C-alpha cells in the first residue's frame, strides 16, 4: 500500500510487547501496522534469537542487521529492560499501567519468575488485555514443554499429514505455525477483547496455547478420528476429491533452475478446458480419464502423462495460459519469483522497502489484510537494539533524565 499517513483503527492503543522470536512479535507487528504504539521489550541479558539469526546484511555484523528480526519488528519501539535486574519489575509495571495490551509468548515459568501473571498485571491496570501464547498453555501436564514452530508442526499433526506417504514426515521446511496461524489467532483474540473493553471497560486474560491454536486448524482430520475412529495419513499433493491435483515439473530455466506448476481440476468442465489446451497430449486423448472416477482410479498414470506434457513448457507461461481458460494453476514461486518477477505482487505493491540505518533499503512484508479506508502501513523500519530506551523511559514512563541514568547504571535499562 502507498498510504503512509491517516488514521488507523488502533491509533492510541499501546502494546507492552514482552514477546520474542516469531509468533509473538508478528502479532505485535500487525497491531503496529494498524496504528498501535508497540514497545518491544529487549535486553542484553536475553537477546531475541532472531537478532542473531540469518539472513544478515552482507558485510555487516551486530544486533541490527538480521532481516529475520527486522521484518517482524518494523514500526515498533525497542526498549531495553533487564527483567532479571532488581527493580526492573517496577519499570515493567509502570509500562503495564500505561498500556492497553500486554503481549507475551514467554514460557509460564518465566512469566511467574518475572511476576507478569495476569493477576499481577491486573492489580496495576484492571483494564489490561493480557495475551499469553505459550507453547502448551499456562497449565496442564505438558505446561513446561519447550518448542518452536518446528516442534509444533509435528505435534499438531501437520507433519504426519503432509508430504510423500512413502517417505519420512520431515515437516514443511519452515516453522510454519509461527508466521500466520499463531499470530493471526492472537490478533483476532486481542481485537475481540478490545471491542469488549470499549463496551464494558473490562480487561481480560487471553490464553493461546500454541498447540491448541494449530490443532484448531486441523478440525476435519481430528473429527474424522473422534467421530469415526479414522486416523488419516499423508497423501502428498493428492486431494480427497479434486483430480488431477498436483505439482508438475516444467522445463528448467536457462540457469538450470527447476520450474514447477501447480494444477487443480475441480470439475469436468475444467478438465475439458485442460484437455483443449493440451491438444495432442496423451492424457487428453485417453478415455480412461474423461470422468472424475476414471481420473482418480488411475491417478498415477494420469500424473505421469501430465508430467510428460508439462515437461517442455515454461511454467509461468503455462500457468497464465491455463488460467486464461479457467483452470486453477500457478507457477511454484521461489523467493526470486516473489521478489523480482511476480508483476502482480509488484503492481499491488505488497512488499514494502524501508530505509534502515544499518541495512539500507530492505524488504518487509506488507500488512496482511487491506482496509480500503484506514489501511495499515509501516511508518518506520525495525528499531535498532534499544533505540528508544531513553524516549520511552522519559516520555511514556515519566522518568527524569537523572532517573534514567541511574536505572541505566544499575543495569535495569540494559
Amino acid at each position: 500500500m502507498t498510504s503512509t499517513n491517516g488514521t488507523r483503527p488502533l491509533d492510541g492503543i499501546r502494546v507492552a510487547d514482552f514477546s520474542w522470536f516469531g509468533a509473538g512479535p508478528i502479532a505485535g507487528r500487525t497491531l503496529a501496522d494498524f496504528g498501535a504504539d508497540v514497545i518491544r521489550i529487549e535486553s542484553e541479558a536475553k537477546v531475541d534469537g532472531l537478532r542473531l539469526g540469518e539472513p544478515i546484511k552482507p558485510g555487516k555484523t551486530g544486533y541490527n542487521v538480521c532481516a529475520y528480526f527486522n521484518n517482524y519488528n518494523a514500526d515498533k519501539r525497542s526498549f531495553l529492560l533487564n527483567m532479571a535486574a532488581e527493580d526492573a519489575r517496577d519499570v515493567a509495571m509502570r509500562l503495564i499501567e500505561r498500556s492497553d495490551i500486554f503481549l507475551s509468548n514467554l514460557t509460564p515459568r518465566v512469566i511467574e519468575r518475572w511476576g507478569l501473571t495476569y493477576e499481577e498485571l491486573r492489580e496495576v491496570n484492571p483494564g489490561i488485555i493480557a495475551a499469553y501464547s505459550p507453547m502448551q498453555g499456562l497449565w496442564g501436564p505438558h505446561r513446561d514443554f519447550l518448542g518452536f514452530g518446528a516442534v509444533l508442526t509435528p505435534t499438531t499433526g501437520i507433519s504426519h499429514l503432509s508430504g510423500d506417504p512413502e517417505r519420512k514426515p520431515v515437516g514443511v521446511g519452515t516453522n510454519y505455525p509461527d508466521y500466520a496461524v499463531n499470530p493471526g489467532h492472537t490478533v483476532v483474540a486481542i481485537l475481540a477483547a478490545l471491542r469488549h473493553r470499549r463496551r464494558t471497560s473490562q480487561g481480560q486474560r487471553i490464553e493461546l496455547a500454541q498447540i491448541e491454536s494449530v490443532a484448531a486448524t486441523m478440525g476435519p482430520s481430528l473429527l474424522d478420528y473422534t467421530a469415526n475412529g479414522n486416523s488419516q495419513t499423508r497423501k502428498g499433493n493428492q486431494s480427497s476429491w479434486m483430480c488431477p491435483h498436483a505439482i508438475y515439473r516444467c522445463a528448467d530455466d536457462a540457469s538450470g533452475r527447476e520450474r514447477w506448476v501447480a494444477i487443480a481440476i475441480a470439475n469436468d468442465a475444467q478438465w475439458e478446458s485442460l484437455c483443449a489446451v493440451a491438444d495432442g497430449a496423451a492424457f487428453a486423448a485417453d478415455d480412461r480419464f474423461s470422468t472424475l472416477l476414471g481420473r482418480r482410479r488411475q491417478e498415477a498414470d494420469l500424473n505421469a502423462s501430465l508430467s510428460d506434457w508439462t515437461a517442455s513448457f515454461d511454467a509461468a507461461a503455462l500457468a497464465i495460459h491455463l488460467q486464461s481458460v479457467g483452470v486453477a494453476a500457478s507457477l511454484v514461486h521461489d523467493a526470486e519469483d516473489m521478489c523480482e518477477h511476480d508483476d502482480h505482487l509488484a503492481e499491488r505493491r505488497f512488499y514494502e522497502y524501508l530505509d534502515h540505518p544499518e541495512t539500507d533499503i530492505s524488504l518487509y512484508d506488507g500488512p496482511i489484510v487491506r482496509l480500503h479506508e484506514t489501511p495499515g502501513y509501516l511508518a518506520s523500519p525495525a528499531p535498532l537494539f534499544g533505540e528508544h530506551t531513553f524516549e520511552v523511559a522519559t516520555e511514556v514512563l515519566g522518568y527524569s533524565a537523572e532517573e534514567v541514568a541511574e536505572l541505566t547504571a544499575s543495569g535495569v535499562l540494559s
Partner: protein
Amino acid sequence: MTQAALDGVRILDLTSEMGWYCGKLLADLGADVIKLEPVGGDPARGRPPFWQAQPGRETSLRFWYFNANKRSATVDLGQHDGRWLLGELINTADIVVESWTASERARLAEQGLDPAAYMNERPSLIWVSITGFGLDGPKAGWEVTDIVAQAAAGIANLAGYPDGSPMRIAGNQAYIVAGLSAAQGALLALLQAEATGQGQHVETSMQEALSICQETSHLQWDFQESSRQRVGESYRIPGIGTYETQDGFIYSMVGIPGFGAPWTEVINWMDESGMAEDLTEPVYAETFANFNLRILLDPEEQAKHAPVLDRAQEVLTKFYASKTKTELYEAGQGRRLLIGQVATPADIGDSAHLAAREWWLELKQPTTLGQDDADLRFPGPPYRLSETPTSIRRPAPQVGEHNQEIWVDEVGIPAEDLIAFAGEGAV
C-alpha cells in the same frame, strides 16, 4: 451470564469453503452469523470426511466443523427476486463476508449486485472480500484453490524433498490463513466503524496473507540474491531432524545452545538406558560442549568433527528406534530437550494434555432426516478469553434451516411472500 465479545454483531456469510474459517472465528466469539446458501445448499457440503463415512449433504464433518454456530438461509442469486432478497438481508447486517471468484463477482456486478453500492447506501457497512489474489492486479481474475495459493505464495517451494516435487502443507492451510486475515481485517474495521460510524471494504489476498509464511526465504533473496530451496531431510548434525521410533517418528531439535538442555543431557539419558555405547568417552562431551551456532551452520566446521558427529548420530538413531514416540516426547521434554512426537490425529485425539485442559467440546449434531444425532467430540477453540469465552452454541445448520426466522421474523418478508418466493425457487 457473561457477554460475548462480539455480542450484537450481525454477519452475513456468503463464502465458499475458502472463506468458511473467517465466519467460524467470528461466530465462536459470539457474532450472529447467517450463512446464505444457494437453494441446493453450499456445494462444499459434499466434501469429505463424512460422518460414519457416509457421503451426503448433511453428513460432512468438514462442513460441520467450519459452520457450527452459523444459521442457514437459502436464496437463488440467479433470480432477480433472489438478489432483491439478498439486498434486504444485507440491510440488516453489520458485516458482509464473501469469497466470490472473479467471474462470479463480475456476473453479480452486471446483475446489479455491487458491494460499492451497498456501502454507499449505508456508510457503516463493512464488506469483506476474500480472494485468491486480491481485487486488482494482473492476477485478480485468477482461479484459486489451496494448492494453487500455496504455490503462488512461495511456501510450497520450501516444503518437501529436494529430489521430489514441491509440497502442499496439509489442512487447506491457505483457506485457514485467508480466513484469519479476513477476520483480523473485519475486526479492525469493526473497531473503526463502532468508533466513527464509518464502515469500509476489507480485502484479503490469499497469496499475500500466506506469503508471510515464507519465513526468511524472501528476506534472503533481498539481502543475498539467493533463493532458499526445500531441504527435506538433510542430515547435518546429530540430534536435529526426524527420527524413526518403535511406533512412528519424532522430530528432535536438541543441542542448540540456549534452547533447552545441552547435548550432553542426551548422552546422560542414553547412558541411564544403557545405550550410550562409546559416547561416554570424553571426546563426545568435549565436542558437544563446544557446540555453537557456527557448527550448526558451517559445513566446514562440521567436516572437522565428522567422525564424532557421525558416530553420535549412529548411536542416537539406535536409541530413538528402541523407544516409542510418546515415551521420547514425554521423557525428552522432561529433561528439557526439544523433542516433538510426529503426532497422528489419533495421538492428538488421545492426548492426555488436551484432555486435562478440557479442550474438546461435546456437540450433538443432527444428521440426515430420520437418523440419530451424531454425538461429537468437537475440536476446541484456538484461544481462551477469560471474560468472554468462545462457545459453540448450536451445531452446523441444515440447508435453509432458518429460512423462516431469518426472512420472515428478522428481515420482515411477509410469510405469504416467502411462500411465493419458495414457489418460484428463489428461496
